[in-house]
């Protein structure tokens, strides 16, 4: 079997160490060695966005990165956004309020993407929202609730100075 490379990264604030072949994807490392099963694989070719995570604050597709490329990096997955077990992040709250999800499979990627998008653009127009989330695919909602949720989250985060 191929050589196992030691890996270490900070995932949702905790140091996670593991071993993997050079070809191990970041998505598979996060799912299988860091227990972040909220990282979902919808296409494994970088289009659907379900596997989106933040790497040192930037939204990336974890299916298109090898785990070794993230060695030493700080990773935030959807599991790392809510402040505690009883409270949702404003983006998560907005997705719930606005019915921005049905089956929930694409949702982690959308939530992470929208959080990053609002970080970069705290006061987006509707057109900017639609463009900003067009890198993620959802097959259930027709995007109606997702656009509305992004609007709500923008307003809430702006109001609370979170963004």
């Amino acid at each position: 079997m191929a050589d196992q490379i030691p890996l270490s990264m900070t995932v949702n604030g905790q140091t996670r160490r593991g071993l993997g072949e050079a070809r191990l994807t970041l998505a598979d490392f996060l799912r299988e060695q860091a227990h972040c099963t909220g990282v979902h694989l919808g296409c494994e070719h970088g289009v659907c966005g379900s596997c989106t995570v933040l790497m040192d604050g930037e939204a990336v597709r974890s299916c298109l990165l090898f785990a070794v490329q993230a060695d030493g990096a700080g990773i935030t997955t959807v599991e790392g956004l809510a402040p505690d077990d009883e409270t949702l992040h404003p983006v998560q709250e907005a997705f719930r309020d606005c019915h921005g999800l049905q089956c929930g499979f694409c949702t982690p990627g959308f939530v992470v993407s929208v959080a990053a998008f609002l970080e970069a653009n705290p006061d987006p127009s509707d057109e900017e929202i639609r463009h900003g989330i067009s890198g993620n695919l959802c097959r259930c909602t027709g995007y109606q609730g997702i656009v509305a949720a992004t609007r709500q989250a923008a307003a809430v985060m702006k109001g609370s100075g979170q963004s």
Partner: protein
Amino acid sequence: MSQTAAAARYVGQSVKRLEDPRLVTGHGRYVDDIVLPGMLHAAFGRSDLARATITRLDTSAAEALDGVHAVYTGADLNSYNDSLRASLHPPESPAPPANMLADGDVRFVGDPYVMVVAQSRYIAEDALDLVEVEFEPLDPVVDYETAAESDHHVHPELGGNLAHDLPVPNPATDEAFANAAYTITETWHQHRQTNVPMETRGIVASWQPHAGVMEVWASTQSPHELQLVGARVLGIGEHKMVVHFGDVGGGFGQKMFLGREDMAVLVVAKLLGSPVKWIEDRRENLLASNHARIEQMTVKMAVGEDGSFLAADLDQLEDDGAYPLGGPATPGAMATMLYPGPYRMGPVSWRARTVYTNTCGRGAYRGPWQMESVAREQMIDRVAREIGMDPLELRRRNVLTPDDLPYQVSTGLLYETTISPKQTLEQAAEMIGYDEFRAEQAQAREEGRYLGLGMALYIEPTSMGMGPLGTESAMLRVEVDGHVNVFMGTGSHGQSLETTMAQLVADELGVRPEDVTLHQGHGSGYGFGTGGSRSAVIAGSAARAAASGVREKVVAIAAHLMEASADDLEVGDGVISVKGTPAASMTMAQVAATAYQNSDALPPGTEAGLEHTARYKAPPTTHSNACHICTCELDPGTGKITLLRYVVSEDCGVLINPMVVDGQIAGGVVQGIGGVLYEHAVYDASGNPLASTFLDYLVPTAAEVPELECGHVVVPSDTPGGHKGTGEGGAIGAPPAVFNAVADALAPFGAYPNRQPLDPNAVLSLIASASDE
């Protein structure tokens, strides 16, 4: 409904979903999240040729790779194939050979011919590269229009490519055509699309020797279909087949039935004695799960001078592919039978055929027979254009009104009095501002801009009450602390049943929705699962009945304990109180504790415990209806279509959760938009699929879809809650509405589209060929 039923407190409210906290935080549990000790991973080797003989297959190098546990070919697995059929599919009806793996020859690109089971998915895929295989290519059958006449047979065992041919002549149409002012004919084509659930298919199977138990986790819409068919394939009893139901990432029909791969995993898990996981990748999902909508209908309509529809003659042809998912079915027969839709149509004659081709098998996709609405609504716009009448006016002249109901359709359907096509037509026309748009459109054309409006009106048979589809059950138990567990045969995969069923139970039993947990899969009673727009009516009625049964007992016990009359009690939010005297009350928890732990205190003759099971049998059909209208702008320079507005007026009876209903409609509408404008699972003439990634198979994004406006007409159905099914409707109404809008925008060019997709190339070539004439 019991006499003491509470007033609707939660039904009708947009209650926030109980599913969401876990799903928005990444704590859902989908099949790929299941990890078992010693679990192995399966991968399938698939044909790159549409039709070929396997001349050599050597798996020795693959077997020798470190980490590989086993390699299987058709010869190893296909002896289990006697039982490989869906429970909707009668055993005596003709079907392709029911093999899990191709054996001797391959019949479409994606046909699995070898299966590797290894320590990891990475190693399993490495091993597939080491499988040595040689093929002798054969001429494939790709074009379904000529498949029936081809000398090449997709399934040599069947002796031909015609799967079904159902002619239903009706001599009464002859007279109508003879007397018609207009006879108009067109062939309407849909094109190959696929469901694309964001979670692909997947299954984990774990065999327990000596116990004889197969334990399964799967991405399924129908845990009981998996239990029933899986047990049959394995030769075990259903009591030994344990199907766990977790979160399921969409299906749209694709996960109603077991695929060949699912069955292979079940068999292999038993042969190996180790748990086996298979997670389909996206390429497999796009090429080898199921395709749909590969069909055409030739429609001949007889129309009177005043625009009245006098008769129709229909000829439907559909591509079943090689291995239709769930077995060969006859949606074409449904499509033709349903063609009259919401109109007085006169006599109808029809013929419906399906053929096999060397392509991915057909499967159910949200509104599997929506060709009836596609062909009819596109035909009505064509008729309007031919006879020079406004398409809304033509529909108004023919639409069924409340005075027409109940209505016996010439094709055998019976519409109940609770449909409302006329009302939804008028509501949608008002929402879009029909006359104002026509004025704006005329003005725009003077300015060289091309706007279009399309509408589609339909009636959908939902919640069908026959055969395996006919019933659902609910086993409801109030636990000792007063919280409620309800076990149901559904398979919610986005439909929000954990919330909507809890709303129904909450009102009927008198608790809060958050006090109710829905359990699906293992432990529930038989049901066909979630699909066919059936859960609200059929499962919902079972949930109501189960809750009602428990409520009667709760009230009887509370009356006894409080020394009050049962008639004087009311129940709400987990508190049983004397009407008008809220201080005199006790909690559900107190009643439950008495029922289980102090049963000597129960009224004499009362059985201990607080549980009830109910099974609901649905009427043959509960029809819902809707009208979709959308507007678009066509750019004649690029051929690009931009949707401007999209309105839906629908009647799904009593809404359990309006937010959820609007969400179901929106999802279906956008699938319809994608189907007409973007998505195409296209093959070349050699049977090579050209859309194997999301860069080629274009699912709509947020940037392509307009804001949806929903209106509701509420005519309660005669079923217990007054609901009607609504899951599929969006995907039924949207394709013809979008198509008609584009056709309307193309009308000034003299172009007559009759096929999809209407992508920019198609639009430009329609304009070009019209101007050549």
